[in-house]
């Protein structure tokens, strides 16, 4: 089949095809330089000892030693566990809140900008700012959270220095920050649902809740899926907000995998081990994404 096509190409078509490749080449080379080369270098590093604080040790090849070390490293296990917990809480959390926000923004308000601004503002804010703002909310003495508790006559809580509360505070910040992105994706999805569906449902006497369950949710499925994939991938890489709020504390109890990798490479200068950890994170990320993709590909067949 492809042979047949190639035979049928005229010289002009062939030269156009060559031109096409030539015009793609710069983009491909750029991509190779900023994506493929670093990934190759990362994988190569992960099989070597490379510790910049000990340059006299050289960078000998150590095989799977860094990976074996990771498997026996409690701190790595804890960081993976924390990352998974963040995913489990903040991905559904952001989708539920984001859906609510999208439905709200989709209402026929006369003045739309306050809602739209409320949607865009958290999304436009740099992550680390969001982390710092929430850190001050939950600060022990001056924080607004404890001010509210004191106002209610309750004892102030150690929000950022007890593991459970710190996890809760960080999740809250992440959900606040990321639900607006989810809402934007879902809002786009909502606007593709034809009004006539709801009018027909109204005529048939369906309640608002039935309309939501039978029309909105099924029609929104693809958009929800896109939002889930994006949110999950960014949740795997959670770094800025816990970094700014607790820096992983108390102890290491809120440290994520990305934070541990950063600490190992940038603070400890242990590039070999840090690279192995990064490759492991890449694998986790790839597995989760492929599960999603398989699910979406199966999806149309079920309907």
């Amino acid at each position, binding site marked *: 089949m492809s042979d047949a096509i190639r035979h049928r190409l005229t010289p002009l078509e062939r030269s156009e095809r060559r031109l096409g490749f030539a015009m793609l080449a710069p983009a491909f080379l750029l991509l190779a330089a900023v994506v493929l080369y670093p990934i190759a270098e990362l994988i190569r590093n992960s099989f070597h000892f490379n510790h910049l604080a*000990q340059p*006299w040790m050289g960078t000998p090849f150590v095989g799977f030693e860094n990976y074996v070390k990771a498997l026996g490293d409690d701190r790595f296990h804890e960081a993976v566990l924390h990352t998974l917990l963040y995913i489990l809480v903040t991905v559904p959390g952001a989708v539920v809140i984001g859906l609510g926000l999208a439905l709200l923004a989709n209402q026929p308000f006369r003045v739309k900008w306050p809602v739209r601004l409320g949607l865009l503002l958290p999304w436009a804010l740099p992550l680390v700012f969001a982390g710092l703002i929430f850190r001050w909310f939950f*600060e*022990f003495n001056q924080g607004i959270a404890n001010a509210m508790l004191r106002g209610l006559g309750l004892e102030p809580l150690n929000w950022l*220095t007890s593991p459970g509360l710190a996890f809760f505070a960080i999740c809250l910040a992440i959900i606040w920050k990321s639900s607006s992105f989810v809402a934007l994706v879902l809002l786009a999805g909502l606007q593709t649902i034809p009004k006539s569906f709801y009018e027909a449902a109204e005529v048939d006497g369906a309640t608002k809740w039935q309309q939501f369950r039978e029309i909105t949710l099924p029609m929104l499925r693809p958009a929800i899926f896109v939002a889930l994939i994006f949110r999950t991938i960014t949740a795997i890489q959670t770094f800025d907000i816990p970094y700014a709020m607790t820096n*992983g504390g108390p*102890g290491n109890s809120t440290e994520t995998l990305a934070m541990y990798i950063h600490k190992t490479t940038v*603070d400890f200068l242990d590039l070999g081990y840090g690279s192995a950890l990064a490759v492991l994170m890449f694998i986790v990320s790839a597995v989760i994404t492929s599960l999603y993709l398989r699910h979406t590909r199966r999806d149309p067949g079920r309907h």
Partner: protein
Amino acid sequence: MTSRFTRRMATRLGLAAGLALAGAAYAQAQTTLRIFTGGQQRPDVMRQIVDGYMKANPNVKVEVEVGGATSEQQQQYLNTVLASKDSALDLILIDVIRPAQWAAAQWAEPLDSYLGAEKDAIMARYLPAYRAANIVNGKVIALPYFADAQFLYYRKDLLEKHGLQPPKTWDELKAAAQKVMAAEGNANLRGFETAGAPIEGTVCTYLVPLWGSGEDMLKDGKLNLASAAAKKPFQLWADLKAANVTPPNLAEIPTDRIRQNMQAGNLIFGMTWGYVWNRLQNDADSTVKGKIGVVPLPGFTADKQATCIGGWQVAVSAFSKNKAEAAKLARYLSSPEVAKQQAILASHLPVFPGVYTDAEVLKANPWFEQALPVVQSARSRPVTPRYTEVSEIMRTNMNAFLAGTKTADQALGDMTNRLGAIFR
């Protein structure tokens, strides 16, 4: 028409030539040096000092780059700059714990050849601890900029009001804090604070009581945390916490928060560094001007007081393109006259014993009289090229203990395991 055109052309050409000449002369004469300092090390005072240097050396322009507030934040940034061999920084202010690490990583240009025959005479002027800290394997890695140690800051007015003497032991401190807090009845008034957040200063929160009980973390280069003394720091902080002398949020307190709380009048005792004095006395928003005293830190017994040595050094980057000029500036920054200037402007402790007794310095900092013996007896945190890892292990475990997420045994056990892998 032609003449006007030629004239205009000539002016333009002349102007361009003049500019080019001026530019060339400028480029020949002017060396720009960039110095990195931390937000906590009084960059404003550093600017005043380099302004003086630029006036005396018109061929040199010095830019001051200000980095993070804590030692480990600064190092994080410097790690990325120096690991990539970036020449953007010529001089860098480094913490006293860093020279061994910087020598091992080959980030600091050894200064021996720039000091020449005067090397031994120059180094002999410094306090012995700073001489020792900055010479690694016989090479001068950096020159000391200012000294530091932890002291006990206390509210002179409150202690006098309640008939108390500044404490010499931790038990006296606990009793004094409890008495003042009970008598004052101010809900915002805390008894005692030291660094408890996962930051560099928290390493000293562990080491000071350890030294106070007569042990050290390393013995002959081997880890030495098996004795009963290794548990003493945990017991001390647990005891002060149980007595409500330390606040419930000790685990989120970084170094400068102690100063802020003291400045706001919310703290009776603070274990912190030399710079705090100047801020408490001179900051516009300080509510405790003239109400503060400074004494050596308490010990478990009055005769065994210990403290952590601090202080900042000027290193010349190994990747600088102006090393000779940079070394000259480093020598200036590490001179008795700059030490005196810093002492007066920022209450930075001098690295030269003679400056402590200078009349102007004593006028600005009356407590410097007792400070010299404290700095002289202050002890060093472990010296190792892998100090960032050592520090991280100690401060996160101490932080976890202070937050109550690890028991003393868990924290000490985790510390021993992880440090054991480094000090094999």
